[in-house]
């Protein structure tokens, strides 16, 4: 990759992150935003109201940071899985993590747990769901791709049924809408505490994927070829699954189901840098971060009520992707 590309792809999400702090439903003078941010690095006199500081530091900043990490994490997981499964239609929820997390969240909502407890339960269910898939897919100490996919389908179907059951028994005046809105996805739960819970697994998983990215190229050739090249495919697959599951479970548990990002951002990345995972994975991370930041800025500012993220990611993303698809005719650079 050319150095200018590298600089641009790292600078873009960071610039967007900074810009995101200036937009919102609450009117804050841009100068105040800048000074509040600066005051956290360098002590200057606080001549702005405490409420404004709360908006910037406790509401906007955690939310924007979360959007960035969730977008990056989902996009990286998607590209790792698309390589490993050798299938462009794969998204991070292929092994049932989303369905399991969603059921966990619904249970927490039914039991009226608070947001942090909900996040913990959803995360645990997500990990548990993928663990079930992995056990189901084990055949003679190997996990063939087909077995993984089918086991994922089984586990996802099972948890979806449980989720429907949870919705069926939910109180229609309060619990049912809460479950429904949660499933549509939202970053409104972002706070410093939820970040402290969600970021470590996302960072750990993404770092792991970055280390494994050249081996993903070998894995993308198929198990047998990879093995003949001396790659321990089972260990590698398990590693990729652990990393992506950590990321996806953390993302889903903190913001509900945000579709499309993990499916399509990798394709966008491939159009820009080709299918080599050494370049594709970091590219997906950066595009994913920028994309979700941008989408969330719309979600939280466009109307008085919040627009669910799951609606916007596809509503804005689909036409944009269609445009790119026509322009590149589906080929890589």
């Amino acid at each position, binding site marked *: 990759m050319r150095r200018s590309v590298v600089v641009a792809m790292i600078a873009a999400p960071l610039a967007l992150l900074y810009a995101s702090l200036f937009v*919102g439903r609450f009117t804050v003078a841009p100068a105040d935003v800048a000074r509040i941010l600066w005051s956290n690095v360098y002590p200057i006199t606080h001549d702005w109201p405490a409420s404004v500081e709360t*908006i910037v530091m406790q509401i906007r900043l955690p939310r924007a940071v979360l959007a960035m990490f969730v977008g990056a994490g989902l996009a990286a997981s998607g590209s790792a899985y698309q390589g490993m499964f050798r299938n462009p239609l794969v998204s991070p929820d292929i092994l049932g993590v989303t369905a399991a997390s969603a059921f966990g969240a619904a249970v927490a909502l039914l039991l*009226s747990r608070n947001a942090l407890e909900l996040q913990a339960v959803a995360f645990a269910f997500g990990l548990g769901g993928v663990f079930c898939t992995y056990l189901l897919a084990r055949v003679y100490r190997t996990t063939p791709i087909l077995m993984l996919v089918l086991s994922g389908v089984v586990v996802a179907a099972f948890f979806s049924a449980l989720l429907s059951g949870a919705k069926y028994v939910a*109180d*229609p005046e309060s619990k049912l*809408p*809460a479950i429904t809105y949660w499933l549509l996805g939202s970053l409104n739960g972002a706070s410093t505490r939820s970040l402290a819970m969600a970021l470590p697994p996302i960072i750990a998983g993404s770092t792991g994927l970055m280390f494994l990215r050249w081996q993903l190229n070998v894995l993308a050739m198929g198990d047998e070829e990879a093995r003949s090249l001396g790659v321990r495919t089972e260990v590698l697959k398990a590693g990729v699954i652990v990393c992506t599951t950590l990321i996806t479970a953390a993302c889903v548990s903190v913001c509900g189901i945000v579709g499309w990002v993990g499916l399509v951002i990798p394709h966008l990345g491939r159009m820009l840098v080709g299918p080599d995972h050494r370049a594709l994975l970091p590219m997906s991370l950066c595009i994913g971060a920028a994309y979700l930041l941008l989408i969330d800025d719309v979600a939280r500012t466009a109307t008085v009520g919040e627009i669910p993220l799951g609606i916007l990611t596809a509503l804005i993303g689909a036409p944009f992707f269609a445009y790119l698809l026509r322009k590149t005719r589906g080929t890589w650079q």
Partner: protein
Amino acid sequence: MNRRKALLAVAHLWGIGLLAAWTRAPAADPGTRQLTDAAGRIVTLPTRVTRVADAWHANNGVVLMLGAADKIVATTAQAQNQPWFRRLYPRIEQVPAAFNAAGEADMEALIGVRPDVILMAYDGTMPRWSGAVSAYHLPIVMMPNRSLAELKTTVRMTGEVLGDSESRIAAEYLRYFDDNIRRVTLVTSKLGPLERPKVLHTASAGVLTVDGRQSVIDDWIAIAGGINAADVVGVGRPVTMEQVAAWNPDVIIVGTAPNQQNRQSILDDPRWRQIKAVKDGRVFVNPSGVYLWDRHSAEAALQVLWAAKTLHPAEFADLDVGQETRKFYETYFHHALSDDELNSILQATPP
């Protein structure tokens, strides 16, 4: 062979015709009466209604208040799950819950209990199962549910459906309700715009949703001399934390069980700390009894008093909500509340 088939078909049709003739009740039957419901339909009811299927959870509490709970033969799981409903009327747990959360009916259970009438909230469409039910000549009465005025209409209609004694109680209740509204508005109508606090009524925890305009909640906030801070239309709308900060409500009323716990999570969250209501210590839980006071409950008559006292404690210093609550439960639910019980209702904790 063909002739045999044709004969069979004719016999079949004749049988259906007979059945239809047998089940169709003549319109001017002296044993029936007619009533126009919220959907504008003219519904024919038996003169004496003794068996009611109530598909609207909130309305079950109204039937209980009108003294006709013994007539309930089918209810909803949500009505059965209201702790105070069960406390005051334990039989509700034995009544079949023929309606689920989504408003769908278990047809066999419903027809099995042979209701004289089915009561339901009208949201603009008839339930999917209304066609199947009409085949059994079970009348459905749709009742309006979008405002406090419509809640009053619903109480009147419910009384009318149930019978004379229930109608009398309904009329008495509506007088009491109107008296309370008058008592409150006498004071609150004189308030200037600056004296009306901005009130945020939260609808659920976990996911932040609030109750907006065109709702029962909006109505009682206005009567009690407040302004609904939530500038959205409808109940249970999701909003961002920043939007709440932009509204900066003077008062927050937590309207979802477990209210106390949900109130605590607001107080514990640093993002809420600079909201005026939190800073001023004006975060309250909404009382909850036979049904949630803030919604389509019989206790909406008390809600206007409670809200007025909560928003304007000085102006309503002489109003004793506890005393009014005791009187109300004594009169309409025939239950003398102990101090603990009164507290459980006002603090929205299970009895």
